[in-house]
């Protein structure tokens, strides 16, 4: 049982750098929450305040119902995995993992048992006698995770634990940490700047920007209903296309980009009506652009012409960089048709899946 609750927690460095700005969130027991955001947005600071490595400037942090603002890290019953592993170089892998247990005066055989169990889970039984410098990056990462799990803490904190690993290992460790989460039934907070990690691992995702929480939601909600342009652009790869356009009323509502014009689904009309005649930011995900309309959205589609600039065939799909003459766009086409650069292409947009943002405050309109 370990809930982590932050109430209006802020961190101000040196009087003027606001790293975290009035963050509030309730992390449920056994939940896996991912914090994601661009570099410097305050993710590490957020996590470090929960760990007690950084003092909150204001607000309260509670773990398991107890306010921990004034509790030292060692008494918070948390474990943290650092980006650069932070192993103790002069100790063997066994001693690295046993260090926390020894400090807590666990009996010798229990320490041995726990370290061996953890090593078993992580597949590092063979490495227990080695020093950290004799390990590969992936092995060090496992030891760092092992050091966290032997103590069976209430809360696990991960600060970009996979960012130093190569792409393949990263994918592998990602699923292993997810498995570990269901096995240990522990509360986990996980920091990353990689939105793929965020989407695949989190029960819920917290999107941070400039120290401010933008949105807290499960992955699909975040993807389908971002609250603002930042979240819409941050989640998803390739990123959502943003198009500057004007909203027009020609019998129905139309969005006019200059080179093409598209009719909007009627369900959006109420929300968009106040913006008629004004500038608007129109967002469409690359996979909502198709090379031909299929039946299920034929009624609510807009076709347009574009020039192909770059083609990236992936096998299962083809990513094409196109321009309407005014706006550069990215499209992910599920097609085996050969597409050549510098040709004209006819495409359709699934208008059920477009988003509109207010260009002044960047909030989602619909």
């Amino acid at each position: 049982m370990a809930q982590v609750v932050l109430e209006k927690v802020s961190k101000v460095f040196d009087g003027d750098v606001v790293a975290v700005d009035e963050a509030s969130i309730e992390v449920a027991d056994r939940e896996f929450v991912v914090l994601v955001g661009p570099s410097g947005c305050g993710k590490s600071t957020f996590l470090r305040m929960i760990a007690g490595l950084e003092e909150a400037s204001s607000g309260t942090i509670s773990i398991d119902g107890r306010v921990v603002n004034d509790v030292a890290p060692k008494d918070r019953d948390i474990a943290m995995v650092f980006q650069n592993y932070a192993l103790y170089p002069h100790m063997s892998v066994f001693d690295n993992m046993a260090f926390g247990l020894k400090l807590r005066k666990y009996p010798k055989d229990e320490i041995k048992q726990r370290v061996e169990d953890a090593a078993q889970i992580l597949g590092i039984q063979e490495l227990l006698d080695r020093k950290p410098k004799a390990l590969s990056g992936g092995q060090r990462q496992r030891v760092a995770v092992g050091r966290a799990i032997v103590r069976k803490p209430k809360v696990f904190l991960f600060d970009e634990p996979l960012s130093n690993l190569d792409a393949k290992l990263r994918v592998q460790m990602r699923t292993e940490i997810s498995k570990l989460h269901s096995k240990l039934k522990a509360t986990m907070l996980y920091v990353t700047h990689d939105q793929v990690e965020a989407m695949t691992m989190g029960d819920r995702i917290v999107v941070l920007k400039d120290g401010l929480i933008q949105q807290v939601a499960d992955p699909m909600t975040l993807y389908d209903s971002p609250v603002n342009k930042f979240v819409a652009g941050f989640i998803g790869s390739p990123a959502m296309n943003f198009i500057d356009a004007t909203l027009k009323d020609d019998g129905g509502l139309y969005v006019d980009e200059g080179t093409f014009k598209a009719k909007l689904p009627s369900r959006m009309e109420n929300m968009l009506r106040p913006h008629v005649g004004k500038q608007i930011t129109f967002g469409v995900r690359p996979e909502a652009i198709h090379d031909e309309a299929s039946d299920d959205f034929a009624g609510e589609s807009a076709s347009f012409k574009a020039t192909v600039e770059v083609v990236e065939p992936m096998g299962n799909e083809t990513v094409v960089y196109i321009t309407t003459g005014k706006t550069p766009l990215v499209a992910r086409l599920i097609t085996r048709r050969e597409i050549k650069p510098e040709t004209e292409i006819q495409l359709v947009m699934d208008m059920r899946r477009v988003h509109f943002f207010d260009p002044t405050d960047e909030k989602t309109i619909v």
Partner: protein
Amino acid sequence: MRSRNTKLVAVALLVLLAINLFPLYVMVSVSVKGEGTVLSHLYDLIPSEPTLENYREIVSHGPFARYFFNSTVVVAFVVLGNLAFASTAAYAIARSRRKYANLMLALLVSTMMIPKHIMMIPLFTLLLRMNLIDTYYALVLPFLVDAFNVFFIHQYVKSVPREMEEAAFVDGAGLFTTFTRIVFPALKPALVVVATNTFLLNWNSFLLPFILTNSDKVRTLPVGLAIFSQGEHSVDWGLLMAGATLAAIPTIVAFAFFQKHIVRGITEGAVRG
């Protein structure tokens, strides 16, 4: 090309080695010359009738053992003191988030600019008033911590990743445990250098120990030897060099021993990403 370069380097190293070893050789060769032959055969590089007489004399007669003991005690405390105080001070300064920490370091470093000899008379007066002249305290207390050592270790602490300590905090260690179990071992390469330097500096130190002592009871080796080999009107060079040779043995042994550790210490630096 390559082998020629290595040959050149080898020759250069040999020349350097010869230049450095020559005084040592002279010291040893003079120490084995018989009584009276030192001056008459001054330029004989190879002593005609080598003898260990000087060694026998110095070990059996003068209070050589006492000097040796004094030196060992004094230097042991000074080395331990420097390790303990310089590392803790350096750590505190390096990890402090307060602005005055840097100012303290700057002040500390600026004391290195004061020539040691300027402090000789004030130091003497101070110890005299404290009634410590001619005691071990006079030889140990003023040398317990050296500003340079603090500075040196400070620079090293800066290179130790802070996350290692933070990992220890989260693991359940307090500040003291983190320092002794995690930081101190990580500083090993710097500590070895500090220990070696402090040892060499103090083992061979002459002027201050000479001023601060009056009796054989606390005299250290360099002081004792100088006084012991001093005849009424002349210096017994053979005796002096025998003493110096004996005194140099711990230095050479210590250096040979530490050197291995220095190399290993450096290659064993903290593990990072």
